[in-house]
């Protein structure tokens, strides 16, 4: 039996997901941006703008080719997210700055958020 394997682009080596811990639901429709820091100038260069989908994920953050060692920043528009549900938030946005050194690994940088708290961890 032939198996036809569709050629699909490699998944992003960096992924995220957002959980709304106040309601225990995915943090869907949250805008986020990924930035890469230029090593010499320390200026932030925007790589992607995206929105979390119904499963709270945002695929396609970066390609393997773009993914170099260095400092990155994920910016989550948390204030906008809560405002779209008619609520205020203590945090107008959340930025998570992290260092990538080993390109052979996969990196998962989630955000668990309520209006008055948030947490993150390095997953894979």
């Amino acid at each position, binding site marked *: 039996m032939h198996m036809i394997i569709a050629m699909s682009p490699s998944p992003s080596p960096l992924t995220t997901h957002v959980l709304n811990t106040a309601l225990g639901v995915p943090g869907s429709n949250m805008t986020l941006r990924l930035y890469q820091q230029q090593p010499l100038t320390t200026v932030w260069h925007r790589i992607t703008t995206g929105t979390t989908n119904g499963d709270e994920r945002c695929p396609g953050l970066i390609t393997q080719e773009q993914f170099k060692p260095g400092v990155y920043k994920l910016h989550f528009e948390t204030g906008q997210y809560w405002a779209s549900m008619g609520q205020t938030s203590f*945090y107008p946005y959340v930025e998570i700055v*992290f260092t990538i050194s080993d390109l052979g690994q996969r990196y998962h940088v989630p955000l668990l958020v309520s209006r008055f708290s948030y947490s993150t961890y390095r997953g894979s």
Partner: protein
Amino acid sequence: MAVAESSPLTTHVMNTSDGVPGAKMALSLHRLDTRLMIWSMISVGTTNEDGYCPGLISREAFIPGMYKLRFETGSYWEGLGKTSFYPYVEIVFTIHYPAERFHLPLLMSSFSYSTCRGN
């Protein structure tokens, strides 16, 4: 005897990897200047042996606005001979009612952190 009024904004750093206070961590407090859209530094400090950093801001200087607490987590873990996923942690928050008290703890390991609004 005059007693200095304590800061209406406080923080506390906990090293959750080792189960100890995050002592001797450098941190700074900034307020967003909305005219120029740049961050102005209000104070710089280092956490004490208990992970606290008193005197972040005076009651008079604590006006409504957007603030940022920046923790030098990378340097902290380097000082313990470890690497950290996060070179620093910045927590940006909005103050509408400065008459309240705000306690912003940071619970962190070299691969995770969390914070909340307390008082």
